[in-house]
Structures are given as C-alpha cells and as structure tokens.
C-alpha cells in the first residue's frame, strides 16, 4: 500500500490549511464520528494509530507462542481442541489487526520485519515464559480478562477499521475468557497438585498482570493526546482498576491469593483497590526486549518467518499467475 505524498495530505502543523482541518477533525471526533482510511487526519493521529495497532497485532502473534507451545500437552480432548481454537483465533486477530494498520499505510511485511528486528514492541506479558499447564489457565483467564477491559474500550475509539476489528475480536475473546475461567475452576477445585500449580502460576504472573495496562497515568506520555482524539477512552490506571474490581473477588472465590508484597486493599469509600505501584522502569526495560524470554520469542518468530519464506513466495507467485513450467 502506497501512502499518498505528504504535500497532498497537508497533515502536519505548518502545512497549508492544517489548523482549519485539525479543528474540523477534532470536532468530528468529539461528536463520536468514525474516521475512515480516506479521510483527512493529522499525521500524528495516523502515526499513533499505526504504533498502537502494530503493537496490538504483534502482541497477538507473540501471544500465540506461550500458549501454542502447550497445545501438545493439553490434558483432555476438550482442552486440546479449545486451546487450538484459541491460539488460532489469536493468529486470526493478528491478521485482522495488521490489515487494519495497513489501511493507514504500513504493510504487514514491514510490520513483521520490524517486530523480528526488535524495532517494534509487543505486550509485556508475552515477554515471560509459560512454565506449567497452570500458566496457560492463568493466561487464558486473567490476561484475557485484562485484555478485554482494554479492547472493549478501544473498540469505541474513533478510527473505524480498528474499532470494527476490535468488535469482532472482543466477541471471540469472550469465549476465551469462558474457556480460561473454566480451566481455572477445574484446577482450583482439583487435587492439591492442581491447586498448588494454579497458585504458583498466579504468583509468578501477578507482576506482569499488574503492569499489563501500562504505566501509571502519572508516567504515561501518550494518554492526553490519545484521549483527546478518542483513540483511547480510559486511562491506564482506570483500566487496571476496572480489571481488579471485577476479577479479584472471583479469584478470592476460587481460593486464590495475590502475593502479599502488592499490599492490595479494597477502599470501601472509593470502591477501588489500592496497591503498591509496579516498578515502571522494569516494565519499560521488559517491553524494550529485555524480559526473561524476549530474545527467545523474537528468535522463534524470526525462524518461523524465515522458514516460511518459500511458502509465501510460492503463494505470491501462484496469486500473480506465474507458474513454473510443467515437467516433461
């Protein structure tokens, strides 16, 4: 996809008509109109969306790795089918999201290359290893739950193609959540070995989960602009709070606990949870590619991309009508 030349877009401060167009654009967005690919938009809006959708798409295909590696071990026929379906959905979400980002002028190939080269980010949670089957249960329930809080909000955002992709993704994620909760119930009501496995997984995943929605509002540098342009409708802290309010009681009901160091307390007056602030420097360090398994995730993606090259080339040749001659 070729992006129209900058001159014709006049989408940066100082370009002819920029201020006037910006005022019209912001009025539209404030009314709740959806912005479509051919519409005028400030370049900064385009770039922010490309960045966000790209990270989101990368997170889907990197998220397929920790869970995918457990498909061969899934401990019942029902779990096996559900896990294949879930990981398949995630790859499908990646495909949908790359396509949404392509409407803004960046190709899928370019985005996957940037991911592999370590130039583009993906969600903090997928920089950690899935060590046991219980990790798959925790990812499918709690991380999907945290993701749904974020995606439901983003699905109301101003950019049409992204919002529509997210509507479909949220619909499928609801099934994943049910599947994840069901797995956690089985483990939590199972034998001691299963209960211990699940609690151990919660203990290891709680830090990445607390960090999932991103830095505190005090530290988040993009939030103000993203909210003005209705790319994002809730702050990171508000999303984290929504997740905690909804899911902590469910976890406690299953007999699960959260590591004491977080000092999670429910404030009856404000109906919110208070907690020790995550180490946001560590978060930044992890998402920049320095997490416990960041290098292995990228190497996995790089190798599978590299090994799939001959398939992609053959499919591209077939699609363009080029064929190798038939043997005699």
């Amino acid at each position, binding site marked *: 996809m070729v992006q129209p030349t900058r001159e014709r877009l006049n989408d940066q401060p100082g370009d002819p008509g920029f201020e006037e167009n910006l005022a019209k654009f912001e009025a539209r967005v404030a009314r709740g109109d959806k912005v479509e690919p051919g519409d005028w938009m400030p370049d900064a809006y385009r770039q922010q969306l490309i960045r966000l959708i790209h990270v989101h798409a990368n997170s889907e295909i990197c998220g397929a790795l920790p869970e995918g590696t457990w498909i061969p071990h899934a401990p019942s026929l029902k779990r096996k089918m559900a896990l294949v379906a879930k990981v398949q959905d995630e790859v499908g979400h990646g495909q949908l999201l790359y396509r949404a980002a392509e409407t803004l002028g960046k190709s899928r190939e370019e985005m996957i290359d940037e991911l592999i080269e370590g130039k583009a980010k993906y969600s903090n949670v997928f920089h950690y290893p899935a060590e046991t089957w219980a990790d798959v249960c925790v990812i499918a329930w709690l991380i999907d739950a945290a993701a749904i809080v974020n995606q439901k909000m983003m699905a109301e955002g101003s950019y049409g193609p992204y919002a529509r992709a997210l509507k479909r993704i949220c619909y499928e994620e609801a099934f994943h959540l049910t599947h994840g909760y069901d797995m956690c119930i089985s483990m939590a009501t199972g*034998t001691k070995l299963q209960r211990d496995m699940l609690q151990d997984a919660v203990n290891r995943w709680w830090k990445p989960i607390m960090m999932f929605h991103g830095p505190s509002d005090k530290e988040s540098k993009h939030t103000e602009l993203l909210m003005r342009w209705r790319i994002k409708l809730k702050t990171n802290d508000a999303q984290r709070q929504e997740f905690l309010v909804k899911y902590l009681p469910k976890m406690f009901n299953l007999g699960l606990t959260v590591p004491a160091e977080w000092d999670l307390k429910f404030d009856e007056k404000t109906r919110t949870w208070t907690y020790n602030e995550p180490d946001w420097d560590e978060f930044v360090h992890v998402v920049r590619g320095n997490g416990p398994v960041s290098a292995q995730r990228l190497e996995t993606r790089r190798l599978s991309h590299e090994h799939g090259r001959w398939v992609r080339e053959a499919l591209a040749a077939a699609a363009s009508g*080029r064929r190798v001659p038939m043997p005699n």
Partner: protein
Amino acid sequence: MSDKYTPDTLTPELKAAVIDLLYRLADDSIVIGHRNSEWTGIGPILEEDIAFSSTAQDKMGHALAFYNLLHELGEPKPDDLAFLRDAKDFRCCSFVAMSHLPANAEGDVPELMNNPTRNRLIVHGDWSISLMRQFLFVEADVLRMHALESSTYQPLAAIARKIRGELKYHLMHAESMLRHLATGTDESRKRMQQALNSVYPHALGLFEPTQHDKTLANAGIAPGETHLRDEWIEHITPLLAGAGLRQPTDVEPVFGGRKGRHGDELVALLADMQKIYRMEPTGTW
C-alpha cells in the same frame, strides 16, 4: 448386506471387528490432529497457520466422536483412551505419526522456551512434508468417510455423514495448496516433490490390510482396505500429475501400525500428549 447394526445387535465377531475399525479411525484422527496442531502459531503465513489449525481441531473432534462410539461399545471413556494407552495399543498408521522433520534434520536446537518438540520443529520443520501428508491424508479420509456413510453400523454411518461435511473444507484447502506449492516456484516444486517421495510409502500404510477386513466388508460395515487403496490411487494420480509432480512407483508400503507396531515418533508424540493428563489421571483438568 441388508442388515442394519446397532451396538446391541452386533455379533461378538462383528463387535470385535468394529472395535478394531474404530480404534484405527480414532487413532489416525487424534494423531494427525495432534501433529498438525504442532504448527499452530508458528505457521509459514498467518492465513495458512489459521487454516491448518482449523483442520487439526476438526480432526481432534473426529477422534472424540470415534472414541465416543468405542465407549458406547464398553471401552474406556474418550480421554482415557487418548491419554492413558501406550503406543503399542494405538492402531494408527505410521503415516500420521511422522514428524514434520526431514530425514536429515540433525544438529543443535537452541532453547527457544517452547517445548522441545516445538523447538525442533521451529528449527528443522519442513512445511512441505506437512502439506503433502495433509493432501494425501485428506483424499483418503474423504473416500473413507464417503464409503462409511452407507455403513450398516448405524452409529458410524451417522458420524461419517457429519465428518464428510467438514472434510469439504479440508479438501479444498489441501488441493489448492498442493497446486500452488507444486507450481509456484522452482524451490517449492522441488520441496513438494521431495516431500511426496519421502512420505508416499508411509501413506500407503493408511490402507494396511487387517484380519477384520473381510468380516467388515461382508457385513457392509466398512470397505476393504485394498479396495480403498485402489480408489485412492486412481483419485490422486491425476491430481499429482496436474500439479506437475511425479508419483512414486514400485513403492514398498510401510505397514505395522494397525497391529500396534510403531516407531519412536509415535512414542515421542504420545509422551508429549499424555504427560499432563497422567500427572492426575483421575482428576479433572
């Protein structure tokens, strides 16, 4: 031939034959479903990753349906059948158990924080083997289910009709991919030809004759394996030729799976598949 059978009306001889048949069908389905799902999330292109995973998931569903028929005949429950039997009790052919690795896949595999099988697949796996196996398997699966639709064993006929509906998509996918990959580039043609040569003797193992063939055929429960094989060869020959591939001739089929004689690949596959279930075999996961 006009008799219709249900679990209650099978003679002991027919019951033993049906049980053996169902084990072959179920075990082929779960093993190829498992194998193909090893690619889920690391396929060569997103669209193919999705399509291949979807067929893998369907095959797992087919396995469950056949295990349920076995359970109706007094065998253990489906999950115990899939997760508690050892390789010697499996009746799948070696073809479905083959890994996606070429014969010369040697060398170190880095720790990629996946399970060891998947690490090896990522480093050495060859999609041409997977796709070629899938094509040859699906063609046989469709012919088999078509024949079983008119099985005199009623529960099997009902399941076969349902499965054949789903296999339409497997067939469309496998045939179009075979065409594209065999004719796309010189490299893809070469890989597909090599894959065909290497998997073909195992593919013939799909039709390994069993001691029950005659009983099943005479009772109208299932077609004879040799008959099915001939039908399959007649069917795939023009498709392979149309894609510019040379079909191997004078091939010695790899048999043994239907009698429970398996190589290391099935043993390793089952070790992967059964390890968590066997941690708490009476628990609910």
